């Protein structure tokens, strides 16, 4: 895919491809355009020009005027604030995408139950979503995105609301799911551990551009100040202070 779009402070210009079962982790400073990139891919924001294709299906082509709307893209999106529908039960939240696809009730029930079990949410099935804790919301959001068997998974800060142990469990669940299903996954994160344990590949964004793209060693080896800060948690020349 290649995308162009004017954002508030800069022009977003990104080009990359991602393989089946691969997790591409995007890191970068706040406001570098990471989340905007996810919104552009999902169709919730429109690019000004560029090209997006997924499994040989063109989702967007600025030259030919193709723009598949977000609701037809089959892209699973876990939002930073989860966006769990507070008035519905956990079951209905997860079932939402299947109901819109008119999946028969019996199949719907088994697929929802399977995904609730995958994320240890079975006991909360009938609980209204506004009663959930942050971590439960995040798991419900992931279950809701996975149940539609998307052709691309977008995760915006997928484990930020969890405690350390739950984070580790969630990361391994995401990894296992992505490998097993073969669905490509793009994750935006501020967490060093996410980048290391989730990412097959790492992309570094700065002012709307992917300035580094490669595996962990390659990216870590570069002399970028932000990266140094990201991986060490300290400024490059802090030892002088």
């Amino acid at each position, binding site marked *: 895919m290649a995308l162009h779009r004017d954002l508030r402070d800069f022009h977003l210009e990104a080009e990359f491809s991602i393989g089946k079962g691969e997790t591409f982790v995007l890191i970068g400073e706040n406001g570098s355009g990471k989340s905007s990139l996810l919104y552009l891919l999902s169709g919730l924001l429109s690019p000004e020009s560029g090209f997006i294709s997924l499994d040989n299906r063109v989702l967007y082509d600025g030259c030919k005027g193709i723009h598949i709307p*977000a609701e037809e893209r089959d892209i699973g999106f876990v939002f930073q604030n989860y966006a769990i529908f507070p008035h519905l039960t956990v079951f209905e939240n997860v079932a*939402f995408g299947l109901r*819109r696809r008119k999946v028969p009730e019996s199949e719907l029930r088994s697929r929802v139950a399977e995904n609730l079990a995958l994320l240890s949410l079975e006991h909360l099935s009938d609980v209204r979503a506004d009663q959930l804790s942050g971590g439960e919301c995040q798991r419900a959001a992931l279950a809701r995105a996975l149940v539609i068997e998307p052709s691309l998974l977008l995760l915006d800060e997928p484990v930020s609301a969890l405690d350390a142990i739950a984070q580790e469990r969630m990361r391994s669940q995401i990894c296992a799911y992505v490998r097993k299903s073969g669905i490509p996954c793009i994750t935006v994160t501020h967490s060093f551990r996410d980048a290391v344990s989730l990412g097959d590949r790492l992309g570094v964004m700065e002012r709307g551009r992917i300035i580094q793209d490669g595996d962990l060693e390659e990216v870590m080896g570069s002399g970028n100040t932000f990266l140094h800060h990201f991986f060490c948690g300290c400024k490059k020349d802090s030892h002088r202070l």
Partner: protein
Amino acid sequence: MTGKGDLRGRKNLALTIGAGVLITLLMVFIITPILGLFFRITPEQFLASLTDPMVWNALVLSLITAGISTLVIILVGTPVAWINARHRYPGREIVDTLIDLPLVLPPTVAGLALLMAFGRMGLIGGFFYNFGISIAFTTIAVIIAQIFVSVPFYIRQARASFEQLDTMYENAARSLGSTPLPTFFTIILPLVKAGLIGGAIMSFARALGEFGATIMFAGNFQGRTQTMPLAIYTAMQGDLYASITLSVILIIISFLVIAIVKFRLRGYMQR
């Protein structure tokens, strides 16, 4: 230190007493006239007046017309409020200003304007009159007048509710394959229903109390256009008890409306 503390304590006491006096004065100002109405009529007189056809007709007509007006306002106002809250289009500000206009317009002016538009000689009324349909001085005119004056109450509240709703819910629904209309009915509407119900109740209350525009545009015919406020005004000149009975009923309904908005909806919000 003690002196300073004392001074602060005395200042606080003075402020508390001042606030207490102000609140009491305001309460007395609002409650006295209302109590005056309740004390002027005995329960027997109240019940006897209830059987007066004028009272009964006005009550039924008011509830039916205000109910229909509110229904029309909800059906037309909800999409308009949604569009104005979420979409930019040329002239949106003008549309917003025009929607608010009836709030500041004297109801008699609104009534006269409606007569000029829907009356026999009016812009729209003239067209209908060619087919033998007259709008002015009918029950339909009552409903039109009520809609005209009470529509801003609903749309303002509905628009504010839609604006307060985070777009992330719509985005999530879209990413899960939901097109705009199902998203609106399954996600957005349930999430803003408290605000919409609040707006609808305020519109209903305003429609129920409508006087000026109705008497100018619909006239004052018992059983056809004589709503409660008009009947109160008419009865004042003859049967004072009928007038007081209707006033008491209107006060009770208004009080219930405010109570429902305040207490019921607070419960909704917290859920």
